């Protein structure tokens, strides 16, 4: 079978998971008209504790409450999956410094680039937005290059 080489785990769980991710965003959109991205939560939540003007702009302060609720929902959704499908907690083997340094770059990059994999990748691409398509193509190419480089340097996991 041709697919087996590139899809060692099949495609069902990926496709069903993707359709559910899109459905969650679509549910919020249909009910409220809000296009929910996951990364603005970082800036809007910082407005609770920081006086830095960048975080206290109207788009952040006026949406920070529902963004907290959205993020709590995402955590709960992951927990429901863990309890009823995964059969308990799961932890990564990826080293802490990779998570931490990668997290810092992700935090800078999503805010500078106006979105992340959900904002640009799902909602922006779904909107056929040229800006989002350029952003996704850029981060995909750089991410593949980075992951290959890290692997070539022998860093694992």
């Amino acid at each position: 079978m041709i697919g087996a080489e590139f899809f060692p785990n099949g495609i069902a769980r990926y496709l069903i998971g993707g359709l559910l991710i899109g459905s969650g965003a679509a549910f919020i959109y249909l009910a409220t008209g809000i296009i929910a991205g996951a990364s603005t939560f970082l800036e809007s939540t910082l407005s609770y504790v920081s006086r830095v003007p960048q975080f206290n702009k109207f788009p952040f302060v006026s949406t920070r409450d529902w963004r907290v609720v959205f993020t709590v929902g995402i955590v709960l959704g992951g927990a429901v999956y863990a309890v009823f499908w995964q059969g308990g907690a799961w932890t990564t083997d990826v080293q802490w410094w990779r998570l931490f340094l990668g997290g810092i770059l992700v935090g800078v990059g999503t805010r500078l680039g106006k979105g992340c994999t959900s904002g640009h990748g799902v909602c922006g691409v779904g909107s056929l937005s040229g800006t989002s398509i350029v952003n996704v193509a850029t981060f995909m190419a750089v991410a593949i290059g980075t992951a290959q480089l890290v692997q070539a340097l022998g860093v694992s996991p």
Partner: protein
Amino acid sequence: MSERTPGFYLSILVGGLIFGFGLGYSHMARPEVVLDFLQLEDLGLLFVMGGAAVVSGVVFALATNFLEDAPLTGEQYVRRVKSFDRNVVVGGVVFGAGWGLSGICPGAAYASVGIGNWPILWAVAGMFIGAYAQGRLRSRLTDANAGPTTAD
């Protein structure tokens, strides 16, 4: 902006729950799976993002063309279109480097907390530090551009 009702927040919570469950179900909340994708060893993630974008794309197209305002807010249905500038590319490069190093993006990181993956808190802490650093820098640059009296 209309009053935000309990129904509004409940809808956001339920939508987030479905979203987070999908991230768990697709295994995208596991950095290893994302790294396998980026190392081109398991391309399944194409179906995660593709499937999600198709659902949101169809719903956006239908709602913007055929539906009136959103029931819980009275907001108009619009597409997600952001203006293009150099930061979109620079941000994409920085985000891509972080995603490729860690296998983690914001939504998947929150869902990963939910699946009990406590080491992911390193990534969550990093994301807040990164977002804070760029906010501080941007605020300072804005001050500097405002005029000589505020430049430091």
